[in-house]
């Protein structure tokens, strides 16, 4: 970290490799588009590098990096309001063997003929219907597993707001996906 702040690119390359998967995943789940996620991830790392000297260390580097990526993505989504274009990544091999998902399809879903690909599309479309702040909280917490405290730090609000946004977002998603989730 210290070496990267001194401008050593090899050290920064290490930092990028360490965090790239988490940053990419967050941006991808917020945009639902691989190409946009690729651009925004790169731009986030570039901006973080240029702002590295101003990083005071008040929060962890990981939280600070997340904040840059989330803000950049939200700004991007605001400019592209109502022009969502899904370009989804493929599902990995393990998806078909995930017991939770299999149970959801075979037992819980009223639409029994539904397959994983269709479910993925419906899920992403439902996520895109949420407002950016609500989507951010659901993605960070329910998909990425980030804690409420860290989300509050990343988004710049208090924990109560994080919890209420999460509750509201889940309610909305539940409504959008009612045909695919047996409650």
């Amino acid at each position, binding site marked *: 970290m210290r070496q990267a702040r001194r401008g050593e*690119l090899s050290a*920064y*390359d290490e930092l*990028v*490799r360490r965090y*790239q*998967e988490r940053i*990419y995943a967050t941006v*991808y*789940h917020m945009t639902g588009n*691989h190409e946009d*996620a*690729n651009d925004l*991830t*790169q731009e986030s*790392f*570039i*901006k973080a*590098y*240029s*702002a590295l000297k101003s990083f005071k260390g008040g929060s962890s580097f990981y939280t600070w990096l997340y904040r840059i990526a989330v803000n950049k993505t939200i*700004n991007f989504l*605001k*400019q592209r*309001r109502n022009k969502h274009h899904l370009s*989804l*990544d*493929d*599902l*990995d091999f*393990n*998806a078909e063997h*995930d017991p*939770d*998902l299999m*149970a*959801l399809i075979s037992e*819980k879903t009223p639409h029994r003929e539904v397959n*994983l690909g269709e*479910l*993925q599309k419906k*899920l992403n479309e439902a996520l895109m219907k949420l407002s950016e702040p609500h989507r951010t909280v*659901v*993605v960070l917490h*329910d*998909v990425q597993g980030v804690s409420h405290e860290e989300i509050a730090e990343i988004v710049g609000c208090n924990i109560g707001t994080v919890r209420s946004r999460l509750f509201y977002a*889940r309610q909305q*998603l*539940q409504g959008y*996906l009612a045909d*695919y*989730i*047996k*409650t």
Partner: protein
Amino acid sequence: MSEIPDDFKNLRRLLKLKQHEVPPPGYFNMLAGDVISRIRAGESGGQHTTLERLDEQWPRLAALLRLFEARPGVIGGLATSVCVVLLGAVVLVDRTDEADSPMATMQMAQAASAGPDLASAVQLAPADNSGIMVSTNPVSSLQPATTLFGAPESSLFQTAAFTPAGH
């Protein structure tokens, strides 16, 4: 208190599907290299856009500009309302000047005391009574107006008087 109500259990199960979405194979092997080469390219040239610089120094102004960029209708509406306000102000000032003109007020008062016929005549007469014809023609605009008695009633003309010494 349970943090996650039971109602959302199935939703959270479904959201697990997102964790199985993966980018094309080898994507992460390229990403760091791309980032570093873009940083190198940026170091050799200018790497900040104006908006990014503004974002660092005046984030609120940058946010306002982004809002205009995102919603062109907002800037259109703002410009229209500014124009309407300016136009309204000009019309209002114009009307106030007409009503407050001291000459017009004085003429109206005199005419009212003289009688109704004169009052209507004064209303038709121009407010400017200086004896100068106002015209857009630069030659005629400064010509004194003639009166019924042959001499203009203007301070521009003074009668000359000569008194020889000793008389």
